[in-house]
């Protein structure tokens, strides 16, 4: 999730709790969520901490096939949700594909150069440390 800690995490905590009961939350000193871990299942991490740039920038940097699209969020109201549905779904799909492709590209590139698995890191700094300890 891009910007999990800064925005999205708060919305899924309750749902995760209702579905899973216990799950692990890793937070930083400012109580921003770093990751949400469901034991033996999956870990939701903040890709923004690892790749510190907007998704639009990252999708250009990694030159992924589906680029992040634009959507005017200011026009969204409760009353026009039905009207914007198709446009929003298309925008959301592009965001999802773009982000997953960015992470795949980053994972493959970093593994190819440094033999380090991005999925084992939580931030750019921890990734840098892992690269240092593995290669230097």
């Amino acid at each position, binding site marked *: 999730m891009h*910007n999990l800690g800064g925005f999205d995490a708060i919305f899924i905590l309750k749902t995760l709790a209702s579905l899973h009961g216990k799950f692990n939350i890793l937070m930083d000193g400012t109580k921003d969520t770093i990751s949400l871990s469901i034991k033996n299942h999956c870990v939701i991490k903040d890709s923004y901490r690892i790749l510190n740039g907007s998704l639009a920038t990252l999708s250009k940097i990694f030159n992924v096939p589906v680029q992040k699209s634009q959507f005017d969020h200011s026009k969204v*109201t*409760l009353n026009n949700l039905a009207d914007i549905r198709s446009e929003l*779904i298309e925008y959301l799909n592009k965001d999802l594909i773009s982000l997953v492709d960015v992470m795949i590209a980053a994972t493959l590139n970093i593994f190819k150069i440094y033999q380090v698995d991005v999925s084992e890191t939580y931030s750019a700094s921890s990734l840098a440390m892992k690269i240092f300890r593995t290669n230097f």
Partner: protein
Amino acid sequence: MKENPALLQAINTLNQSVSQLKESVQSINASVPPSSNKDVDKDVDKVDDVINHQSQQGHFDYNEDTSTLTWIDNNPNNPFHNLNIPVNDYNTNQLGEYTLIMDSFITADIKYRSKRDGIWVTSLGFPHPVNTTRLTHVAWFVLFKYPLFIEIYHKYVSKNFNNVVTTYAVENNSQWSQLNYALNRTIKITYEQWINHWIEGIRRLADMPYTVEELTAFEFKLYFTVESKRRFIKPLQPSQNPNPLIGSLDIETVTLSNGELIPYAIGFCLSNLEHPESKIRKTYYILDYLEDTQDFKIASTGGAHPPVACPPPAG
């Protein structure tokens, strides 16, 4: 607020999809060993520091009849609790409050209070020897001459003099320089050499703002060092393979007039590094889970707030 039905369905399906994808990938990659970085990390943890943080805090009571200082530790189970220190020929009337803390290194941090202004001076330089014999002796006696302290001194320090870190709070450069001379030893010396060196350093202190006659109280802190194991940052072994399971998750929100943000669209996309072209992608729209939009208002806010524009989400 009621549970957001679209969000609930999205996360629930995400869980199922992750499980399915993991099973399929595990069956394909059953022969591929997992990444070994975690194993190396465990080795590093095993050699982590083992520092014995003994901390003792309390105060001294002075008995005029017996001319004895008694250490009253905050922890009555501490072996130093009720420790008696005879002060004999020292002018104990000038002794008031003491603080003794034993922690990770030897420090004698002494404060004193003067008759002149009656306030605690947070810095200390030992007075000129002519006027400060008693104070120096008392400090020296309490710090180093009492058998128990000597015992601890030998136990923790004498094995390795390089560990001795003795610092004093002083208030000017002259005192700092003398204290540095007196207390910072980086070469191995004998116990007697270290005592003589310490005394000489104390006696060379100058520019004392108060004489011993002006002192009404002083306190000191003791710290003892236990040598800790060095912790090396071990190299990590390269990963054999990156985790093949990668996904993305996104939430779109709309802002109500009261500022509350409500998710109205959620989606996730799961992929496999080895087959990135095949993706599991699902999106959930709030209207699919409500009979009409009014239900959404009721579900989120009770319908009390009119809809307003939504700012772009962060990230």
